[in-house]
């Protein structure tokens, strides 16, 4: 289990990185935290000709927190975002989800943006970005563009980044007033990819009735799946909400696959359980 050979690039500025990426074309791969990429290389399941190691591009090592939300630069490690009280205050879902990302040692090295770009449908952060309606900023030698979460995840392990593009930062919008968020997942072992997971955001109107309820699911579809469950909750105050109805709606609107850890039916069932649990918790937070 040794990685195949590749040509190594160690840019120190973003421009150098984009330049290297542009020249490598389809044969180039970006190395940030490496916690997903290097296992693939070690198993020789990937063999890029060029590896552009952005770990020296210090301008990407940023976590910016504004009232609007959290901006994570491409070198922001999971652990740094997880520990940031400022980020947690603006968007608590980040810390809640990050605690489920593998194990602490992996989070020391893995990056938030890397996890998004890897686009694993079983990963936590894509679901968080999706439910929050966040975005990813992509840069290339030709310029920059902002890709909304809904367009960013193209398929399993496939983002909509184009050839020569580097995901330079991600934006996680702040939790609005009178909103609450919750994250929950069920995994085989602590730290494993979830058999199913849910990230919920619930908003209340001026009368403390649920006016918005959105849940993003991981390990349920090929990309993070967001369901708007608002209608099924009938704009009631949280105490009288029929959460089971929302769970039922969710179960009816997903079509998960089975694998060696969980059958499709069990996944569907879990999605229902987690829908109920996260909605209830998010609503509680919103009050």
């Amino acid at each position, binding site marked *: *289990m040794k*990685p195949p050979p590749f040509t190594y690039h160690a840019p120190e500025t973003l421009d150098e990185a984009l330049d290297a990426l542009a020249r490598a074309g389809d044969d180039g791969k970006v190395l940030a935290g490496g916690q997903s990429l290097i296992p693939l290389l070690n198993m020789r399941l990937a063999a890029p000709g060029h590896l552009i190691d952005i770990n020296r591009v210090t301008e990407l090592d940023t976590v910016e927190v504004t009232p609007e939300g959290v901006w994570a630069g491409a070198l922001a490690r999971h652990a740094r975002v997880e520990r940031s009280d400022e980020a947690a205050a603006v968007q608590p879902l980040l810390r809640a989800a990050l605690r489920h990302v593998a194990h602490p040692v992996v989070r020391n090295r893995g990056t938030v943006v890397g996890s998004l770009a890897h686009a694993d449908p079983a990963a936590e952060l894509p679901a968080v970005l999706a439910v929050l309606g966040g975005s990813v900023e992509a840069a290339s030698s030709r310029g920059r563009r902002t890709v909304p979460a809904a367009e960013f995840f193209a398929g399993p392990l496939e983002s909509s980044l184009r050839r020569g593009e580097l995901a330079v930062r991600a934006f996680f919008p702040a939790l609005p007033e009178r909103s609450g968020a919750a994250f929950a997942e069920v995994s085989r072992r602590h730290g494993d990819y979830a058999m199913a997971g849910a990230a919920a955001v619930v908003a209340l109107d001026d009368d403390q009735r649920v006016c918005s309820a959105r849940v993003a699911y991981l390990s349920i579809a090929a990309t993070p799946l967001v369901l708007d469950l608002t209608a099924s909750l009938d704009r009631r105050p949280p105490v009288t909400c029929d959460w089971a109805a929302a769970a039922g709606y969710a179960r009816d609107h997903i079509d998960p696959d089975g694998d060696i850890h969980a059958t499709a039916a069990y996944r569907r069932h879990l999605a229902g359980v987690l829908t109920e649990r996260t909605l209830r918790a998010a609503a509680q937070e919103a009050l």
Partner: protein
Amino acid sequence: MSTALFGEPIARREDPRLITGQGRYLDDLGGGALEAAFVRSPHAHARITDIDVGGALEIEGLVAIYTWEDLPGRVGEPLPLLIPHPALTHGRTAYPLARDVVRHVGEPVVMVVARDRYLAEDAAERIRVTYEPLPPVVGIEDAARAERLVHDDVPGNAGAHLVQEVGDAPGAIASAPHVLEFRLDIERSASMPLEGRGVYARWDADDESLRVYSSTQTSTSVRMAIAAKLGLPPVKVEVIAPDVGGGFGVKIVHPWPEEVLVPWAARLLDREIKWTEDRREHFVSAAHERAQVHFVRVGFDDEGRLLGLDVRIQHDHGAYTPYGIIVPIITSTQLLGPYKPGAYRVEFTSLYTNTVIVTPYRGAGRPQGVFCMERTMDRIADELGIDRTAVRAANFVQPGEFPYDQGLVFQDGRPLIYDSGDYPEMLRRTKELIGWDEFGDRRAEAERQGRRIGIGLACYVEGTGVGPYEGGHVEIDSGGRVHVSTGLTSQGQGHQTVFAQITASELGVPIEDVTVTTGDTRRFAYAVGTFASRAAVMSGNAIALACRKVREKALRIAGEALEADPRDLEIVDGVVRVKGDAGSSIPLRTVAVLSNPLRYAFDEETRRATQFAVGGSADTPPLTGEPGLEGEDYYSPVRSTFACGMHAAIVETDPDTAEVCILRYTVLHDCGRLINPRIVEGQIHGGVAQGVGGALYERMVYDEAGQLLNASFMDFLMPYATEVPAIETGHMETPSPLNPLGIKGAGEAGVIPVSAVIAAAIEDAEGIRVSRMPISPSELFHLRLEAESGAAELTNRARSHPAPLRRAAGEAGVRE
């Protein structure tokens, strides 16, 4: 005998080395050696039609590529069938490199040697092997149907078939007041040590000798196997097991293909070569265990006493049978546990499948056997509506009945006769430890909170310390240092500590003066190996016996020097002295000098042993017996000694997600006299953790094509700290009458009953029969659905139990 250190929980003597990074594991050796990698079959069953190595030749640093065609003489012959058995009528072993046909994914086909492993993998990746796929046989049912064959010349895919009988079980069952019949399944798991296998060989062309390091559980046998394969006299082959990063059974198999090929190539190329197995290789080319199906018929009376037990077993031994049929033999015999079965009939068929070979993994067939018997006990209790512990108590071998002959033949070819134990007392203490009699209240309280909990227990008897023998050598040098060696190997059991404790106690020397060497054929050439919870019993007793020889010799020589009767002497802190006369003494280091009459002096100490310095009679020869203050002895038991234990657990199952959480886990254990309680406890903890893995997490998942779907630590789920419960332990010490130290083995104990315990506790919590382990949340969820639809069976207790359990089972169905 001084018992100053025997029985003390002293800290381990190997730890300072291992804690500071100074351990020497296989891959830590041989810096600069060439490295090997293998092209392994991607098919479960296929004919090799072509091997094209052309693409690999341009890899810079490539040294050699070998296929089966390159292997001369015995090197190219099939690997040995290590443990032949009359019932193994169709034993088959693999070639070191596949010849014509591959029979499991991962079977080695081509060996590559290169400057380092990176380059060897580069070359291996470029070798094109063309296969003509053949239909694979996967799983026990597929194998038993025998519509396709793993080996053309093995009809029915059956490698072995064995029946053992005591009394007329079918007759006893037919006339029994109660009869139950059911099927029980255990799936595949594996030892999975964190260090994989590895071999490092260097050939000395001048000396025409070979030194091999192997991460093995048996260096002496690896040596004999390599010598035989390479046509070398054994004296020209040294095999050393360095620090070994865990074994748990898989490393007892030998010679692995790589253990033949690496030394062979090292000699051929006259270059040092090393092969360090990577994790992916370990999954598909080492060994697995556990997969068995059991069909049980049992007849019993109104008190739950067994009248007749008839068990049919189908064992999946994978593609080859290099280690024989030890696993199902152990299941067949150890299934009986602490019970008297009435009449007993057991029959197994050992089947070929196109999967990785099956050889003993810690427990070695016992977890399956205990699962069978303990699930049977629980079924009987449920059928009769009596307490589960009462059924067990009704069937125990009683303390006054030892030695107790079960009338069967054990894995060592010797009669299955239990030597000692006190099962009723152990059950009493187990119930006390887990709070068995108070559990009803606890359950009621939990139910009030909407929680679902259950309790289970399981008992086992484990034959430990199987023969044929082990030896020990003890030498006291003229510096007073005590060098102990034994041939068997260590994989973390703390042998350097416990054997030193035995030595210090037997000889009366400070433990600081004792060093212990294991698994090095240069130091001790005769041994069997480390498996079957045998090291402490076998080598411990052998070392004790060797110590006694050395002690006797020391006392004789000291007696001459002190002009005292040896019977009046004692050894305290490394000094021989006359009892009651502290002034009259001689240190062992001086005795060591005197034990070797010298002509030449090379230091002050030896000067005292030269011919003009030593007095004595002119009419007796200077040397009596052999020179040196050393001794060697062997321990060979007439039969195994039988340890026992009882585990109990309380689990909670999540009514919504079907997750299982172990709330409490207790172990009561009896392995005779404890040499070092701390080490025994550590063994138990580790065993239970592996048992929890086997019960709730670990399984090898093959698809129909024979591809292992979870050949990584991401998907083969060994428990982390977050998955293992706190383990509460208690000990009993019923000495074995069979060996001088009164000890029994402890290595495998922890793992044996865990699946049975957890299954019982989940069944108790859910009210649904659990007949297949491991069980995942997904499977428990489906069991609930099946129970709702009538496809899975509820326990009688659940059927008669009012609200909570039934309602919860129903909800699962409604939700879906």
